[in-house]
């Protein structure tokens, strides 16, 4: 058990610790456990890599946009798939899952030209759309499972009162399916915040995300400043790590269909 803990946590602990170590101590042999903590690397990060903070902001905008889009689209579709069991319709739900077999890197080829032609290159919008596309399938299936658990009698009662589908979705399903929305949002947020491939191919300056700036720091030719690199990685990780820990219950519920209580 200790081994498992060490395996899971040691890399994260090393990263955070190194970000507070004075530069010469990071690569000290043997590794130094006692050192005077310093925020020097964070200060350098702020003064030398302003682009990293722009990257964080871009990541935030893109993550928020993709999450909102996925939640809206998959709640709507999940609602329809849950309440209408016509075989032809359910086949289109299966289709949503099957197309996810396409490796993301394959669609970058044709999209690269089209995105350039539409001048969507290096915009927040293209990443929002791409990230949403790759999670709307899972989102829809999850939402269908969660909406299935809401009794259909509630819909019927509202229909008798003359409520439209939209009203039912908004006033009955939306509040009761909150659990499902939380689960879906955990997946999308973690993915969109950390994604590398699409950001790497479709952004260059204006919409560059935080992971991309970190990759740039790592690849800089004039020697890597490891302290600053660790500081940036820590800043990038911290919000999403806290988020995952807080939302652990929803993450587990989403992955296991409620079999495991987190």
């Amino acid at each position, binding site marked *: 058990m200790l081994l498992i803990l060490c395996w899971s946590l040691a890399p994260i602990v090393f990263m955070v610790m190194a970000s507070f170590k004075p530069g010469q101590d990071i690569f000290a042999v043997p590794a130094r456990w006692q050192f005077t903590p310093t925020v020097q690397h964070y200060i350098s990060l702020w003064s030398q890599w302003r682009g990293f903070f722009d990257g964080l902001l871009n990541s935030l905008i893109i993550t928020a946009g993709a999450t909102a889009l996925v939640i809206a689209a998959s709640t709507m579709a999940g609602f329809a798939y849950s309440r209408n069991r016509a075989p032809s319709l359910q086949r289109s739900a299966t289709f949503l899952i099957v197309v996810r077999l396409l490796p993301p890197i394959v669609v970058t*080829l044709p999209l690269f030209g089209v995105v350039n032609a539409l001048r969507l290159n290096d915009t927040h919008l293209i990443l929002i759309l791409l990230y949403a596309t790759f999670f709307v399938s899972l989102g829809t299936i999850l939402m269908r499972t969660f909406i299935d658990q809401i009794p259909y009698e509630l819909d019927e009662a509202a229909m008798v009162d003359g409520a439209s589908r939209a009203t039912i979705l908004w006033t009955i399903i939306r509040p009761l399916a909150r659990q499902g929305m939380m689960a879906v949002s955990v997946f999308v947020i973690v993915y969109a915040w950390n994604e590398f491939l699409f950001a790497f191919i479709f952004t260059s300056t204006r919409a560059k995300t935080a992971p991309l700036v970190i990759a740039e720091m790592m690849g800089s030719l004039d020697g890597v400043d*490891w302290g600053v690199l660790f500081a940036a990685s820590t800043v990038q990780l911290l919000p999403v790590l806290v988020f995952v820990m807080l939302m652990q219950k929803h993450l*587990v519920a989403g992955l296991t269909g409620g079999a495991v209580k987190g």
Partner: protein
Amino acid sequence: MIRRQDTRIGRLLQSPTGMALPWIAPAHLLVWSLLVIPGIYVLWLSLQASTFGMSPQFVGLDNYRHVLGDVYFWRALRNTLVVVLGVVHVELLLGLGMALLFASGLPARRWLLAAVLAPYAVSEVSAAVVWRFLFDTQAGPANLALAALGLPMLEWSINPNHGLALVSLLSIWLNLPFTFLILYAARLSVPAELYEAARMDGATAWQIFRRITLPLMMPAILLAMLFRYIFVFRIFSEVWLLTGGGPARQTEVVGVYLYQEAFTFNAFGGASATGWIMVLISLLLGAGYMVALRRQSMGHGR
């Protein structure tokens, strides 16, 4: 307006199925415009000779011939298979062990679960930063630990095999939380009465594992395995960020090979052909997944 309802489309729109269409439209619009149509377009591209600023020309299967005759492609494919087989099976073994450990009752289970899930939050980029540091050949703590144990260090930037080993380690570390959770859920769905009955009959721990746990978890293990095969097969970022495919293109995987073809050599035809080879292999694995899924749901009598 009245006449329109007589047409077939009109009737479809009035049917309950038709009423559902506007609701599923946004999800399908995204998937069709950014996945399905581009995917089909790649198939067309793979039959053309094209590059920037040149009108495409039909060349039949030439691109496929080119790719299948390229030693770099075969090396990339071999590397990918090695990584897929290594990563997925180690992940399943570790995940299974952890699932059994968690199910056997642990103190502070909530906190342990949180700790085990932590790598899920880490981005590929940050993970690459840390693992590069841990396995630094001069001062990396993990490499020094290996040396202290009398084992050879991982010279991942020079030795391609070591490079692939580090890529695999990183990939396992990032994805183990996910695999573990699936297996843990499967373990918890094994009815507790079976274990009580077995214990009453005096079965040993090994017998219980062999005769109850393993067979009942098998469908879930198979599903997790195929699922992970499909996802590790498209590995790109881990390799790109750690070794960049080097030294001398020796640690390239198929994803990196495709990227190089398209964006370094501007050979969109070859890249598209590679893309469709990836799609076909994924579809094959996916078909296996569907068969396993159907068998599982029939086993549950649903």
